[in-house]
């Protein structure tokens, strides 16, 4: 049992003071009906976060809770829910923290659209520089500098 505790603790790369722990039971790998199911599963599970670990996806983590949640995701898939419903199911229980792809909403507008705004602003700045630097008469290409 002690080995299992230490196994779980370390597999999670949890900090030493994390007395918040788990156990290793039922480690049998999941079986998939077909390739399509397996691909969908892997794609979905890579977008979910192992809530216990420091920074690992549900796909990568060996923590017990990650194994349980992977089983839960597969069960939900087989029950006919689509990806969005499965994500919502987990968010209702663990909060938005469980999603590695943050939901687009007022709280994340800056995150999702900030870079685009930066590109647009930068584009405007470049355009203004280019316009300002244009000479009055057309310039020849400069090949004097070999590089």
């Amino acid at each position, binding site marked *: *049992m002690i080995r*299992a*505790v230490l196994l*779980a603790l370390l597999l999670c790369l949890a900090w030493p*003071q994390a*007395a*918040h*722990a*788990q*156990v290793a*039971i*039922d480690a049998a790998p999941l079986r998939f009906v077909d390739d399509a199911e397996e691909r969908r599963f892997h794609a979905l599970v890579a977008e979910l976060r192992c*809530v*216990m670990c420091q920074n690992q996806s549900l796909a990568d983590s060996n923590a*017990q*809770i990650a194994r*349980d*949640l992977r089983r*839960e995701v597969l069960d939900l898939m087989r029950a006919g829910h689509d990806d969005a419903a499965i994500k919502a199911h987990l*968010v*209702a*229980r*663990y*909060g938005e*923290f469980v999603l590695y792809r943050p939901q687009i909403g007022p709280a994340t507008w800056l995150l999702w659209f900030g870079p685009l705004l930066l590109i647009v602003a930068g584009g405007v700045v470049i355009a203004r520089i280019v316009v300002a630097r244009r000479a009055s008469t057309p310039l020849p290409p400069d090949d004097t500098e070999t590089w």
Partner: protein
Amino acid sequence: MSASRARWLPLAAFGGILALLAAGVWLSRDPDRDALPSPLIGKPAPAFDLPVLGDPERRVTQADLRGAPYLLNVWGSWCPGCREEHAVVAAFANTQRVRVIGFNWKDEPGDATRWLAQFGDPYALVLADYDGRAAIEWGIYGAPETFLVDAAGTVVWKHVGPMTDATIREQLLPQVERLEAR
């Protein structure tokens, strides 16, 4: 924006980042900082139907527990933090203000029973979630975790990690008093 104004932009941007990082340093002083807030607060406790530890024929559902508030304490014999907080949980159970229900998570029944025999059994009742499915409904992701559920079956408080006397005094008791005042 004029060229002269633009020169101050990098400094201003950096100032913002620095402020954010300072806030980060400030926040990281709190040891409970990494605990996930529960989305269940204010919502009905999830439905469950679990056997009792040591008496698997007897099953308990969330409806059975309605009528009086209860403290649900998630533990396992494999969990060192649970042993840490056990004395605190026992002390609170002794005050008899709120019944304390144990939630034995992903544990072999033999190990769990032995653990209780060794460290004491303060629980009014211990539910056994062997495969962990019920725990997912509660948003449990590690042990120990503790929930306070009111008489109507609504989750009012959750604590992640071992509880200390300070936790009981500063967080749990005020919640209990609020429930008793109703």
